């Protein structure tokens, strides 16, 4: 089944509440996906700075001197903020590519969850409520975010298999459904130089969009072409640095409901996920049409 939630704030005064609103939505979707949970949250940009979210099963050991080691190796200031099994590293944008490679060399066991100017991704196996509590998701603020509760079908119940997936700077994708041509596409995208880290079908969907955008497509165009090139069932919710998009396959058997007010655009796999949002009783609520791309930008 899987559950997806997403929230794109139009009203900046709600930004400190983003994490708590998303957490409530995510926890409501537990019975659609109790295997793992994850969230991508878009924060405030610090000019010239990039951030990398990393995760480790041995966080205490791996993170202790990570920022200092990285700083020394790259010869640039790096700061680190540890949050449970995750840490967010901040450094000059010019060094973010080199930092990815250096992290692999310095700490081979560390997973890079996301990189970009504003995105942070947190995901773990376990019940959504436990994951949210361990990572203090409710305390996070930001401009927009997506969340996912997973019922594993296409690959193992692991942190790598949890959503969201990020295969490009500030990009992320969450998915309800299953793609049937992901193995062939994975081979093709790997040949194109897109890095795919897991055997999960959704990561291939994310990588496909990254590849299309690398080739010059706008996100909306990339989503349009996914309708032709991806086989299977999908409801996708995607995030970019300043945008939030939704698309469903032409059969559209995976559920989706959206709500829009003056303050926000919200997405849920079920209406239940949206009931605690402010002003939901008077919001415009609708079901996104099949094979139709919806997109909002800041």
């Amino acid at each position, binding site marked *: 089944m899987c559950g997806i939630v997403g929230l794109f704030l139009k009203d900046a005064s709600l930004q400190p509440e983003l994490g708590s609103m998303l957490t409530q939505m995510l926890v409501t979707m537990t019975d659609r996906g109790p295997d793992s949970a994850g969230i991508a949250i878009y924060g405030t940009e610090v000019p010239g700075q990039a951030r990398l979210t990393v995760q480790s099963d041995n966080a205490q050991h791996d993170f202790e001197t990570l920022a200092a080691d990285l700083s020394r190796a790259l010869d640039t200031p790096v700061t680190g903020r540890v949050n449970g099994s995750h840490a967010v590293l901040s450094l000059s944008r010019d060094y973010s590519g080199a930092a990815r490679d250096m992290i692999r060399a310095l700490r081979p066991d560390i997973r890079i969850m996301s990189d970009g100017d504003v995105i942070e991704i947190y995901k773990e196996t376990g019940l959504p409520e436990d994951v949210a509590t361990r990572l203090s998701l409710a305390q996070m603020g930001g401009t927009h975010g997506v969340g996912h509760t997973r019922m594993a079908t296409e690959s193992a119940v692991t942190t790598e298999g949890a959503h969201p997936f990020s295969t490009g700077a500030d990009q992320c994708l969450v998915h309800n459904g299953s793609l049937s041509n992901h193995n062939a596409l994975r081979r093709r995208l790997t040949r194109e130089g897109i890095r795919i880290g897991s055997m999960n079908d959704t990561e291939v969907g994310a990588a496909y969009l990254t590849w299309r955008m690398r080739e010059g497509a706008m996100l909306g165009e990339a989503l349009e072409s996914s309708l032709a090139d991806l086989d299977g069932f999908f409801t996708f919710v995607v995030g970019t640095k300043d945008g939030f998009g939704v698309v469903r396959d032409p059969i*559209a058997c995976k*559920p989706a*409901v959206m709500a829009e007010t003056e303050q926000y655009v919200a997405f849920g796999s*079920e209406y239940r996920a949206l*009931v605690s949002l402010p002003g939901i009783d008077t919001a415009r*609520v*609708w*079901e996104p049409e099949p094979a139709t791309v919806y997109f909002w930008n800041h």
Partner: protein
Amino acid sequence: MQQYDLETDGLRGLNAALQAQAAEPEHTAWEVLNPRGSHAIAVGLNAPLDVTVRGPAGYYCGGMNQQANVRVQGSAGPGVAENMMSGRVIVEGDASQYAGATGHGGLLVIKGNASSRCGISMKGIDIVVHGNIGHMSAFMAQGGSLVVCGDAGDALGDSIYEARLFVRGSVKSLGTDCVEKEMRPEHLDLLTGLLERAESDAKPEEFRRYGSARKLYNFDVDHADEY
């Protein structure tokens, strides 16, 4: 009027109380508060009850209904009035996928729009949608009537058997073996009654009728591409 607050008293208690009325209804009027999109509200009823749900319902509201009138004052999630046998379910907002699926009887009224697969495999239920319906509606429909006051999506009535489809607006495309048919006086009479019972003021003569071409009833190699 019995009031039941789903937030404090839970779903199982509600359905148990409503189903317990089947032997001999003690209370016929019920009001369900704080549904908040909960699933399976007022399912499996078998008594002439009036149940009003004050707000949006989740999956399968009013499923398997017999005799009862269930009114949702909000939207309904997937599978509203699924497999209804008799009685009436009215949704005052929109309904999600497969509304009225496999229903054998009774009347389902959706005052807003219905989503995809409305009336899929309907077997005798009457469905009246005041707004639009989505793709693959009335797929493999076997009996009953589907009335759409707005527009219908792709592949209406795909592989239809004997249900009657009436659409006032446009039809994006007809499914395999579904064709437009002549609107005869008996169909206008039927439609008049259905619209009246569904609290719709649409005019029967504005509708077009669709139904089965009956070419797929028996295997015919000339139709192999269409199966």
